[in-house]
């Protein structure tokens, strides 16, 4: 998917710091806490991956971070100040922090894609002409222009995810939270969604993505937070995922690139673990072209593990 040269936003979202401080939450009719003492500082302008198994509390944390739920204990802070749950407070909060839920059908309500995107702009109180301009701009910027008058129920799963993201992004939130935006998508669909998120990130939005795809977090995120049983067990750069014990306690598996990197002999192993297998393969080919395969003739991504370890 080629992006276009159009800027995503006219002025760019403002920077904002979002923090969860010691949040505790229990669902009604449940006998265990979904979150207990969960704290997370979301650094501004970064790509954050929230990793955890099903039931670890990722979705709950996101819903607390955007004000959909109120915590039993703890608070959410925006730019250092606690958020308020009254109408005006929630409106300010949600202008700064957007949430894209897991199932696009749970947040799309209009008849066509264009109407859906305009909805967000018109909600801000802007005029219809402004809405048309903004909608056109974001459709082109996120390569959705060919879908402009299509009703949402005739879109494919990947297209629906991208429209849902565009629908949130059009209002230029400072922080965009996404609940498993790549779940159920084919590899090409995953790349399309990540490309959209990268464009938004380049425009200045802080992106927080919840997922249980360890490889995705390892290769894409600037900051990784691992959730175990209702709280954040570790938060940092992708090296966090190299901790075997943490990975096991979180019911995850180590990143593929790390597993391979670890098992390489010392002379072949690059100094730091690369983000993904493809980069590792490129490094290995350039470091020792054993087997007579010249650099550049094997398409990246089609190298098998057997070839690499020869």
């Amino acid at each position, binding site marked *: 998917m080629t992006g276009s040269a159009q800027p995503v936003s006219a002025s760019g979202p403002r920077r904002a710091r979002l923090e969860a401080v010691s949040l505790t939450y229990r669902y009604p009719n449940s006998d265990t806490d979904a979150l207990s003492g969960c704290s997370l500082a979301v650094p501004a302008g970064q790509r954050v991956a929230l990793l955890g198994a099903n039931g670890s509390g990722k979705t709950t944390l996101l819903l607390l971070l955007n004000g959909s739920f109120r915590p039993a204990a703890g608070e959410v802070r925006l730019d250092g100040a606690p958020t308020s749950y009254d109408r005006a407070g929630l409106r300010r909060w949600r202008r700064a922090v957007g949430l894209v839920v897991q199932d696009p059908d749970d947040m799309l309500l209009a*008849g*066509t894609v264009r109407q859906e995107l305009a909805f967000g702009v*018109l909600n801000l109180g802007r005029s219809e002409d402004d809405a048309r301009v903004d909608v056109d701009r974001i459709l082109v910027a996120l390569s959705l222009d060919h879908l402009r008058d299509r009703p949402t129920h005739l879109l494919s799963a990947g297209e629906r995810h991208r429209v849902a993201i565009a629908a949130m992004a059009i209002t230029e939130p400072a922080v965009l939270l996404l609940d498993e935006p790549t779940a159920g998508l084919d590899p090409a669909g995953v790349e399309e969604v990540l490309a959209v998120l990268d464009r938004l990130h380049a425009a200045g939005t802080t992106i927080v993505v919840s997922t249980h795809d360890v490889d995705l977090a390892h290769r894409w995120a600037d900051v990784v937070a691992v959730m175990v049983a209702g709280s954040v067990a570790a938060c940092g750069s992708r090296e966090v995922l190299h901790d075997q014990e943490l990975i096991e306690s979180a019911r995850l598996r180590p990143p593929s690139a790390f597993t391979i990197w670890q098992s390489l002999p010392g002379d072949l192993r690059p100094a730091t673990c690369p983000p993904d297998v493809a980069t590792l393969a490129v490094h290995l080919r350039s470091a020792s072209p054993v087997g007579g395969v010249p650099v550049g003739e094997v398409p990246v991504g089609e190298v098998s593990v057997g070839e690499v370890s020869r």
Partner: protein
Amino acid sequence: MGAISTIDTLAHTNRWSHHHLGDKVAWAGGLVVAALLTPVWPGAFAVTACVVCSCALAGIPLRVLLGVLRIPVGFIVAGAAITAISVAPGQRPPIRLTELGAAASLAGRGVAGTAAAALLALTVPVPELIARARRAGVPAAACELAILMYRMIAVSLDRLRWQRMAQESRLGYDGVRCSVRSLAALAAAAFVGSVTHAQRLATGLGARGFDGTVWLLDDGARHSPRFLASAVSVLALVVVGSFLVGGR
């Protein structure tokens, strides 16, 4: 998967989708009125011919039109047949065929009218209709409910189709008793599904700052003088011609 109906999909993707709603309604609506008011011969035939040509121009396959007309035509034929029969205990014989001409006339008008109505349905997408209706002054409450219903129907129908296929795979429709039980479960699931969908939408839309207002932007389509002029002149031709040829 995910389509509401063939008609809905075609309404969004046919060759006339860039035309202004008013143009399309003037043409197809005018044909409906013509079917009702002109003499059946040759008015109904002219209207039906116009519908067939419009479908060809708009890129709507003829077999779709025929499929759409299948059920209403059944109703029309049955209804017209009833008017052809006269039941009166006092007369001999008590049941006899009368007014075949009138019945055929009714059937012809019904078919022409239904075809014109089908053309309207096939060329006008529902979201566009609702947005323009809002602009024309239909109360906001009705329009907002309508567009929300449209979106929710798409989601619910899709979910229901999957649930029905799952039931069929478990032999849920093997016989009338089974079917009634499965259908009841399906109906109950449809209700629960619609309620939970509304609740999830409330969360998802709350995240977008939804306060209840559903905005309806118009699509900026322009009237096409050429289209309108052709429509009006053909309609005039059909109406005047029918009255001239068919008498009053």
